[in-house]
Structures are given as C-alpha cells and as structure tokens.
C-alpha cells in the first residue's frame, strides 16, 4: 500500500502544473529552471514509487482516490487510480517526461521559460491521462497535454512549422472529437451513473448493449483513437508533425501521448464492446498489417531525413500494437502494453538523439552526414543502442512486446502473422541504414565542411543524462521484463482471458 501521507497520483499531476504556473508568473532564469526541474523530477519519482508499492490484483485499481469537482451532477468526478495496465504506462510517462524535461532544460531554446512551462503542462496532462479512472478526466488530461503540443510545434518548430502545426491540430482534434462522441454515446447507452471506467463496466455488464450499438460506438472509438495513434491511412500528421516539433515535444508526444489512443482502446473499447470489436477487427488488423507495417515500413526505408525516418518508424511500430489488440487475448494485449512502454522509451530516445545529431551536423539530411562516430563515439553508441532497441533486439525492452504479439497473432491469423513478422527485416533495414549513414563510413562532403567550421563535440553531460535514463529503463525491462510484466499479465488475464471466443470471428480473414 501507499506509505506516503498524500496521494502520489494527484501530486504528480499538480506539481508540474504548479511549476508551470510559477514559471508563468516570471521567475529569475536560474530559479525558474530549478522550479521546472522539480516539476519534472517529482512525477518521475512518484511514478517509481507507485510502481514499487503497486499491489493491486487482477484488473483492480490501486491508489484509488476520488475528488469532488463540483460537477458530480454531470457524473464527473476526478477519480485517480492505477491498474495493471495503466501503471506501467504511468511509470513510462514519468520517466519519459523526466528525460524530455532534462533535455529541454539544457537546450538553448528561445523564450525558454515559456517552453518549459508548456512542457510542464504537457507532463501534467500525461500523468493525468494514465492515472484517471474517470473517462471525462481521461479525455480532459489528453486535451491538456495536446494543446501545448500544437503551440510548441507552432512556435519552436522547424521550417514547415505552420503547416505542420495546423495539420496536427486538425487531425488530432478530429480524432479526439470522434472518440469523445464515442465516449459520450457509450456513457448514455450504458446507463451508467458516472463517468468512471469501473461504473461503465458495471453498467455495461448489467444492461448489455445491442450489437448495432456496440458496433457503431466501437467504430467511433476505433477511428477516433486510431487517428490519434496514426493508424494507416490516418497517419500523415505524425511524421510531418514529429519532424517539425521541437525535440522535447516530439519525445513526449510520440513516446507517451500517442499511446492515449491505444490505452483508450484497451481499457474502454475492447472490454466494453466485444461485439463491436468483432465487427471491426478484420478491417483494422488488415489496415495495421498491410498499411502500417508493410507500406509505412517501406516508406520508412525511403526516407532520407533522419527525423522523418524516426517519425515514420514510430508509425510503423503502431502496426504491431494494433495487431496485438486484434488478438483479444491476454498474451496479445499484454504484449501491446509491454510494447507501448518500450516504444515510448525508445522513440523518445531516438528523437532526443536525432536532435543531438542535428546540433552537430546542422542538418537532418542523412546523406549529408557520415563518419560522425569519429567525433562523437558516445553519441554513436547511444544511437546504435536506441536503433537496436527499436528494431526489437533481445536484451532491450521492445523485443518482449513484439515477440508476445507475434505469438498471439498466430492464434488470430497465421497469414497476417507471416506478413507482420517480415516487419523485423524491414525495420532492421532502415534502422541499420540510418546508423550507418549517420555515424559510419566516410564523411560526406557537406559534413566535412560543417565539421571543419566547428568541430563536433561528443555528447555533453547534460545531454547524456536524459539519454542514459531512457537507455537504462530500456535495458532494465529488456533484461528483466518482470519489472513490469507481472501486473500487466494479471490485469490482461482478468480482462481478456475470458473473452467471448465466439465474438471474435476471424473466419473472414482465413478464407
């Protein structure tokens, strides 16, 4: 149980908000940085604490606390808690947030206090998303984290920031709207008394929903959340947005916030709407495997811009996640959660390192790099490690999720499994190609010129620390997956093991 005298979940949300507020008032630069640092460190420590003392069994919630918001009339109460599925993601949000924050602290961004403030608001939102038991606040915190993303892309983004910010805003707003519609519809159709997931579950079980209703609501949630997770063909905002976004925002969005959609599908859509799921599963599994994994995998190979490559690879990996969801089994869903955590860490690390590479090469164009290892061996080592993590090398976290998803997928559809396993070759191609182009081989002319002007230095301590935090987390889970898998499997089994087998009709696919 929680030995702290206060609710760690609430504090982890309030602390960054408070820090952001203090920064907004205007503090002297040094003090402001210190306050921001506290705002980033505290959630991470509290997340570690919650991970360490986590003691919920099955799909139950630990640290469950309710707060009156004055909106009780609408069934809206702030209720915080963690179950086996949300806890690892909450932990990941804390760690990635810390890394992104530390990286932002050392960056020389213009108007740094505003930058840090927005990042802190984002961080608060992220901690809130995964600790909310109440669907309304789950959605609210997502928006709280999303809006700073738009602003950050708009202000600190790259060359195309205006277009990227607008595209991201339109896409993500539409996605969020659709899912909101779905959530509201679910609330009314279930006849629940309030917006908590627990109550929704109870109500759905008690009242039951007709197949048509399930199917329609599921479609809203699937496409709403799907846009947010960049399900093909609703993905085009992602590579563009990430390539334009400032590094810390890209880290937080691609690493953590993007998982909101998958999380919503796992916690709400799948368990509550099994018949709706059965209606749509073939479509989204096919989209994920052929669209995200194969098409986007090949598109990733074609990228010559490092950050776009990382962005596309992140879209590709979501294909595995959707395939895992399609399995509707404890192995599959457990694999998806493991993968979400791992992908959050590795994608954030790759975005961080890409920016550090950019500082040294002054370009994201990979053909204008080469031989950087000579100047920055430590950076090279980190990048190679992050690349191997993202292509699923055992010993690093991503492997477990992918493996579990592949194993589970065979039960769902052998044909799709065969197609999806070829993804391991595709990701090895683009991953190792980028490592070779950036770091190894002979220097390109363009880079030789840049290097002559200003000799590139190796990773500085301040850059190393956030990268190290992420890499250690990847290694810890990779070497000992039970650091997080215990609660995951308990919750996944409780929720998905007794799934109505008849509900999943995959005959259409195998035919």
């Amino acid at each position, binding site marked *: 149980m929680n030995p702290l005298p206060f609710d760690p979940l609430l504090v982890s949300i309030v602390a960054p908000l408070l820090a952001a507020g203090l920064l907004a008032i205007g503090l002297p630069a040094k003090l402001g940085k210190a306050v921001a640092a506290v705002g980033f460190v505290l959630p991470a420590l509290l997340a570690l604490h919650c991970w360490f003392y986590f003691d919920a069994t099955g799909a139950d919630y630990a640290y469950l606390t309710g707060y009156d918001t004055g909106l009780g009339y609408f069934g809206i109460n702030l209720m915080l808690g963690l179950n086996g599925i949300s806890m690892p993601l909450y932990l990941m949000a804390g760690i990635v947030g810390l890394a992104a924050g530390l990286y932002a602290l050392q960056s020389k961004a213009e108007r740094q206090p505003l930058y840090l403030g927005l990042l802190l608001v984002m961080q608060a939102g992220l901690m809130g998303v995964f600790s909310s038991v109440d669907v309304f606040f789950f959605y609210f915190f997502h928006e709280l984290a999303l809006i700073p993303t738009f602003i950050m892309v708009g202000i600190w983004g790259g060359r195309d920031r205006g277009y990227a910010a607008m595209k991201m805003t339109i896409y993500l707003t539409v996605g969020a709207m659709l899912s909101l519609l779905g959530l509201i519809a679910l609330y009314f159709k279930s006849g629940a008394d309030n917006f908590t997931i627990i109550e929704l579950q109870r109500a759905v079980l008690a009242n039951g929903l007709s197949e048509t209703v399930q199917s329609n609501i599921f479609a809203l949630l699937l496409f709403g959340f799907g846009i947010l997770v960049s399900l093909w063909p609703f993905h085009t905002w992602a590579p563009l947005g990430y390539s334009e976004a400032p590094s810390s925002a890209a880290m937080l969005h691609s690493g953590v916030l993007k998982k909101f959609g998958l999380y919503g599908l796992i916690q709400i859509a799948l368990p509550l709407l099994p018949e709706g799921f059965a209606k749509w599963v073939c479509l989204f599994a096919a989209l994920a495997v052929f669209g995200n994994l194969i098409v986007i995998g090949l598109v990733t190979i074609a990228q010559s811009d490092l950050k776009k490559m990382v962005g596309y690879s992140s879209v590709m990996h979501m294909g595995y996640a959707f395939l895992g969801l399609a399995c509707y089994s*404890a192995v599959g869903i457990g694999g998806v959660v493991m993968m979400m955590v791992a992908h959050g860490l590795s994608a954030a690390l790759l975005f961080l390192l890409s920016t550090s590479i950019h500082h040294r090469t002054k370009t994201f164009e990979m053909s204008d790099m080469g031989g950087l290892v000579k100047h920055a061996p430590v950076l090279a080592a980190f990048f190679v490690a992050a690349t191997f993590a993202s292509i699923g090398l055992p010993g690093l976290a991503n492997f477990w999720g992918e493996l579990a998803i592949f194993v589970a997928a065979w039960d769902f559809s052998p044909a799709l499994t065969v197609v999806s396993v070829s993804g391991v070759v595709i990701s090895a191609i683009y991953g190792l190609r980028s490592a070779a182009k950036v770091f*190894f081989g002979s220097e390109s002319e363009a880079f030789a010129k840049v290097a002559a002007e200003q000799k590139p230095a190796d990773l500085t301590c301040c850059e190393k620390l956030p990268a190290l935090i992420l890499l250690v987390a990847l290694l810890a889970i990779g070497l000992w*997956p039970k650091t997080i898998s215990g609660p995951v499997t308990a919750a996944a089994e409780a929720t998905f093991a007794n799934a109505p087998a008849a509900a999943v009709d995959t005959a259409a696919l195998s035919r």
Partner: protein
Amino acid sequence: MSVQFIALLTLLTPLASAAIIALFLRKQGTLASIVSTLAAAVVAAGSLTLAFGGSRFGADLGAPVAIEWLKLGDLSISLGFLYNDLAALMLSIVGVVGLCVHVFSLGYMHDDSAKARYFGGLSIFMFSMIGIVLADNLFMIFIFWELVGLSSYLLINHYCLKQSAADASKKAFITNRVGDFGFLLGIILCYYAFGTVNLVEIGHASTAGTVVAAAIPLLLFCGAVGKSAQLPLHVWLPDAMEGPTPVSALIHAATMVAAGIFMLCRIEPLFAAAPAVALQTVMWIGAGTALYAALCAITQSDIKKVLAYSTLSQLGYMVAAFGLGSIEHLHDETKTVVILSAGVGAAMFHLTTHAFFKALMFLGSGSVIHGCHHEQDIFKMGGLSKKMPLTFITFTIGVLAIIGMPGLAGFFSKDAILYLAMENNTPVFVILTVTAVLTAFYMVRMWKLVFLGGTRSEDADHAHEGGASMTLPLLVLGLLSVAGGYEAIYGGHFDGVLKQVAHPHGAAHVTILIVSLAVMIVGAAGALLFYKSGPADSLQQKVPGAFAGLNVLKASFDSAYGYYVAKVQQRFALLLNFLDQILIAGLIVRGLSGVVGLFGLAARALHTGNLHVYVYWFLAGAVILWALAAGTL
C-alpha cells in the same frame, strides 16, 4: 560449487566483463583487454571442468535449472540450461577457441585505438554464444541467437570509418534477420504444435509419434541458413571478413557460424519425425553450398576471402552431413543392427575438428597479415616460410588437416561424412568428393603462394613473427588440429555425440580410404604444379575463361541481391513514399481540409458580430447542455 553454479558463472562472467568495460574501461584499452581475456579464461576453465567433470544436467538428466523470465497470459518464456553431451562438446569448443582468440588478440590488436570496444565486443559475443549453447528452449536460443548477431555486427564494424566495414556489418545483420524471419515463425509454429518450446519436451513429443509438419523443421532451418551462411543467404560471410582477423577466426569460422549446425543437432528429433523432404532439403542446400563455395574460393586473391569461402564450403559439408540423416549400423560386439544418428555425429565431429583447424588458419593468416603490415593479397606475399617459420609450420598443419591428410583431425571427420554420403546418397557423395578435390586445390594454392617461392613485396620482405601471445595460440590450435581426430583425447565424455559417428568397415573402409587419399593427392598436386609463385594468378593467365566464369559465379548472388535492393525494393519504397506524400497527404487531406474550410465559412457566417445573435447562440447551447444533463436527449 554446484555444477549448475559453474555453468551460470561461465555464462555470466563474460557479460560482467562486457559491462565493466562499457561502464568503466572505455578509455583504458589495455585494462579492458586483460579483463576480457581473464573472463575468457574463466569460460575455458568452466567449460572444461563441466565437460570433463562428467556432470550433465537439464530435464531428463536430473537437476534441471530453469527460471521463468517472462509471463504474459499463457505465454511463458523461461531461462534454463540443457547441458548434455552435445552442449558439453560445443561449450568446450567455444571455451578453448575463445581463449586462444582472446590471447591472440592481445598481440594482434595491441596498437588498436579502439581496443576497449573490441574486447568489450568479444565479451558480449562469448556471453551470447554460451547462451545459445546452454539454452534449453527455442525462445532462449532465439534470444541469444539475435545477440550473437549483435556482437557480430559490432565486431565486423570495428573499423567503422571504412565504408566497406560499415556496409558489411549492416549486410550481415540484415541477411541474418531474413533467416530469423523463418526461424521465429518456426518457433511460433512449434509453440502451437507442441504447446512447448522446450527442447527436451519437443524431443519427447516427436519420438512419441506426433506427426510433425515438414514446415516446422524447415522454418527452423531458415535460422541456420542465415547464421551458418548457407545458400542463398551466404552472401554476408565473405563480406564479414572486414572485421579484425581474430574475430573472423572466432565468430566467422569456429563458433557462431557453426551455431546453425549446433541448433539443427539440438532439434534433430523434429527432423526425424517430419517427412523425409525436410532432411533432404537440408542435405541438398548443404551440398550445394559446399560445392559452390569451393568453386568461389579458387579465384580469391585475399587470404581471408579464401578462408571465408573455405569456411562456407565446410559449413555446407556439415549441413549436408546433418541432412544425410541416420544410418543402420551393425554393432561390433553385440552383432545387432542399431540406428545411428550418424548425421548429427558426423556434423558435430566435423564441426569440432573444423573449429580447431579453421581457427588455426585464420589466426595464422592474422599472424601473416600482422607480419606483412596489413597486406592481405596473397600475390604480394610469398616466401614467408623462412620469415615466419612458426606460423608456417602451424599453418601447414591446418592446411593438411583440412585437405584430409591421414592422421590429422580433418581426415577422420571428413571420412565420416564421405562414408555416410556413400551409404545414403550417391549424388551427394559425388558432390562432396568433388568439393574435397577443390578444397585441396585452393588450399594448397593459397599455401604455396603465401609461404613458398620468393617474396614479392616490400611488406613480405620485412615480415616478422608476432610475439608470444600470437604464437602460443597457434601452437595450441595446431596441437588440437592434429589430435582432434582421435576419440581418445575426448576421454569418452562426449559419447552422446561421438558414438553416433558411423565408421566404415571392411570393403567400405578401403573404398573411403582410397577415395579420400586420391582426392587429396589430385587436388594438392594439381595446385602445386599449376600455380607458379608469381605476382599474377596462373589460372587467369592460362585459362582466362574459367577464371572469369568462376568470378561471375561468385558475383551472381550479390549482383542479383544488389539489383533487388537498389532497383526493386528501393524504387518500390520511393514509389510508396511518393504515393503517401501525394495521394494521402496531398489530395485526400487537402481535399478534406477544403471540406473543413467550408465548415469554416459556415461558422463564419454565424459570427455576425451582432451581440444579440451571440446571446441566442449561447442560450441555445445552454439549453442543449441542460437537456443532456437531464438525460432527456
């Protein structure tokens, strides 16, 4: 200390060494080399203690060690050891050759600027390789299988500023991944077919008569095709010679590339239970690789490339031996017919002797390259027998062993394979015999060009023997290349494997002996007479057509793959990228944004700037909200 603890220590010591080097010794190359070599010594000691101490453990053998590593739903992945005679033999090879290579590296890599990275990589490799050897289930094999791929990638890429090294490392990893694609599917298939991936349990299920689809062993074999560089995934191994020479000796000759054969032997019951087509496929791929690589080796001018193609060819020998399968054998004393897993026996026996003599020759070539100031072209060497006598003697032992000189290690293991082929499949016997002629031919060609005649370059003039750390491993491996063929030196500790080797008797014995002697003499004498110690290839001068033909044969796979990657895959990827940009990002989304724009116009129409209108809108919104809250809507 319990035996399981020794095994665990053997596994984890190199990991600890790698971790220490990565964390603390990045800039202290000398210290790193000592740490890593000590770790290798612990491994060698541990593996020999275990093997010759006689203890075996794992399921069925008592005292199984396994812990659960990951559990998600019904999927449970465990870490466990299966230490039977097969694993004991393999572990001993890894330990002995590993230590030799570490010691040799102390001298060879003495002046390297990235020594710490190199020795760290060697330690990671030792850890991963031992993991494969000890693993008791397929998931665990796969995990360490990928990790040896990583260490191979890191070590091939040691001279990472060289474009060719960067390309070769990438190629090695990706080609292996293609094989692993099948391997992983095979494991998943196995998991569903048997409900387990534990090697012992799979063995029980297979021998109990479960019908095994040929797809399972064949998919698993894909892994071996990648790792052991069989046709058509062999292309990475010759390129992998970009790595430092001791790495080539350890990883790309003696141990890692042999892991594929070891893995096949581990899952042999699956092949036995599957339709014959599975084994036959393996046999033909092995035989094809053996012949193809031997042909390629003839025209090579880089000393390491000759050895690389020779390794490919010998690996093909082992795979073919495995594919030849079992044999009925009349037991000497009891006079009863027993079925020997002769394929496993012959493959593992040859794997063992090959590990010794090929590591010896690679290290010998390293000694030559080191002595000639990193000259690798055999046409620029010559006359090294006088400059480097010790290297010359040990290298000669290696050459004699591989071409099958009676009394040396290779003679026994090669004869075991030839005998098996003669009994089981005549076409394969012919292919392997031709391969043996070619082997003697290209090996003696290289040997003559490197060591005999006069020196042909300044570097060769100034060639010199390396220090004790480089000559000692040569002596040890030279000794093993002689003694490795005699069962006596194994002290009966690996009988589970070596007793499966089929030995010819009577007339068959004479036939095999004659064939094998004839093969050696024809090949060796041909090369000795044909090649002159000159700066140009005699074959190129005398029969340019054949020379060019062999080169085309060698390049055929690479150019086909090159064409596919550059012209098909890359263009297809670019096309998809274009469609992604234009169709989805451009037309559809811009079209969508047009629709949104219309909404915007409509919305703008509502914003009349008239306060009254706003008030109405606000009231309407409030009513809707109220209706929602009251649940009337």
